[in-house]
């Protein structure tokens, strides 16, 4: 299915740039490219892409700087591409307003799925949806935001107050990665600090209640070193 969505690929390595270009074009996207951060900002303002695929390790103005610049005026979804050893930067990218990330090296299908998901979220206008929707549903997992109940296959699951808050917070923006910092701040208040252990232990307990196999969660997914996301669609 051809679509005319325009993707700005920001990548300084020409081989990877070429491969990405080929893959995306073959899948019906229009591709424009930039090799430096400065170029990326210029291209984004002059070409109004529907999505930006941004490599974090750029020469000169680095990826984080680009996100900061872009977010001053643009809500275009940003999909960050990062190497394995850039975990800290990944977290900062999210805090600056990146929408999702993918770790190098990645497979084609994973990349395309992430792009589709990011586009979907942009179209859904997450904020609006969060106001309107009164429930979340994924497969046999349901949350009723009004009655504050969580059920799996119709069977109610008892969660503690904090556990419910975490689940609801994630379910309000399904598919979106929420960083540890965001979740800690929203659930425990602004003074909780950076210690994410309490959050992660709570998550482990939630999974033990929700998931059939906690080591292979299906509903709440972990983004290593970054945070969690609630499953949606795909």
């Amino acid at each position, binding site marked *: 299915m051809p679509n005319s969505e325009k993707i700005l690929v920001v990548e300084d390595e020409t081989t990877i740039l070429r491969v990405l270009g080929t893959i995306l074009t073959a899948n019906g996207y229009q591709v424009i490219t930039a090799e430096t951060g400065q170029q990326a900002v210029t291209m984004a303002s002059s070409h109004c892409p529907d999505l930006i695929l941004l490599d974090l390790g750029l020469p000169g103005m680095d990826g984080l700087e680009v996100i900061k610049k872009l977010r001053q005026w643009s809500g275009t979804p940003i999909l960050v591409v990062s190497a394995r050893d850039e975990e800290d930067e990944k977290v900062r990218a999210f805090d600056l307003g990146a929408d999702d990330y993918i770790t190098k090296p990645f497979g084609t299908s994973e990349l395309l799925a992430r792009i589709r998901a990011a586009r979907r979220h942009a179209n859904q206008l997450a904020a609006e949806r969060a106001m309107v929707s009164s429930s979340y549903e994924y497969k046999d997992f349901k949350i009723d935001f009004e009655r504050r109940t969580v059920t799996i296959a119709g069977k109610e699951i008892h969660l503690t107050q904090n556990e419910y808050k975490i689940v609801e917070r994630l379910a309000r923006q399904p598919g979106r990665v929420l960083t540890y910092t965001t979740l800690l701040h929203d659930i425990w208040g602004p003074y909780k600090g950076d210690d994410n252990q309490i959050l992660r*232990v709570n998550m482990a307990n939630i999974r033990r209640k929700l998931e059939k196999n906690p080591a*292979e969660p299906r509903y709440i997914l972990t983004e290593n070193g970054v945070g969690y996301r609630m499953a949606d669609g795909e």
Partner: protein
Amino acid sequence: MNIKYDKIKIFFLNPLKTSAILLSATYINLLLLDRFTTLGNASEIYILSVLLISLNTTGYVWGILSAIVSVLCVNYFFTYPYTNFNFTREGYPVTFLVMLTVSIATSALSGRIKKQREFARERSRLAEERQKIVVEAEKEKMRGNLLRAISHDLRTPLTGILAASNALIDNDELINSKDRKELLSGINEDAEWLLRMVENVLSVTRISGGAPSLKKVCEPLDEVFSQVVSKARKRYQNIDLSVIMPDEVTLVPMDEMLIVQVLINLVDNAILHGGDTKVELSAKIIDNFVKISVRDYGKGIPTNDLNKLFEGFVSRDKDCTDSTRGLGIGLSICKTIVEGHGGQISAKNMPDIGACISFTLPITEVTSYAE
């Protein structure tokens, strides 16, 4: 800076010690003068002080100097006429000569003792240094071996990639789509393998600096395991993987990336060497440790490989059927990582079928946030 300071200290310390000891000797003699001191007594106390000085100063000079001073003191203070020098009285010149000789000899002897002491110290220091060099060389050798093994393992898939891609470029029209697909998936597989090797190399560089470079943070075992499971599933579509976790949510201090690396290596081993797709991942708390095991249902580990399993290069043997995919390095890296965490790793064959590799990690405290 420090050395200079030490030199100054010695420079002042020697005369200070010498005069202090001589003064006290004279003082003691003077105190005793009336009642007890005879010439012999006074001389003996001075000889003692010469001995002490010789032992406590550097070089011969101070000992000899104090011997001369002692002789003069005895003459001045303790022989008649008191507080006056007189070398003429009968018999005294002999006494003084003897005393001087004894003092100098004592001084020389104690100097030698001190030399020997220093020598012994020097020798033990040298021995220590030699020990350090040996350990360092051992480490260097291990690193060298590891590097050699790794480059061997890198070359094999690279050769495959080069050959396959060359074939595709040069004979584009001659290759049918089935063969093309086969060549391409070969390239893909080899690249995946390279990636794994590189991840191992990365781990080595992170730990080769020693334990302090480990970034230990308390991680919930649940999440560590789920990372391993999702990686393993991506790698082996048909894996039959089960997980057994402790009842309580357990936090274990670790460098997560490295421990995941260990577990992935163990799962790789289980699948590729065990030859069966059924693998069990389990964790059990034993006192202050968590014991994590990867058990397979494959053909087990050859008995003569069991004790050198973690030394690396086991599968580099000529008779090994899958020598292109040597995993010995993976295991020696596992060992380094686990020991860097203060744990131990061991392997055994299960009585019925398959092998089990387990490692321990210390848990300082079991933190429970149960509400």
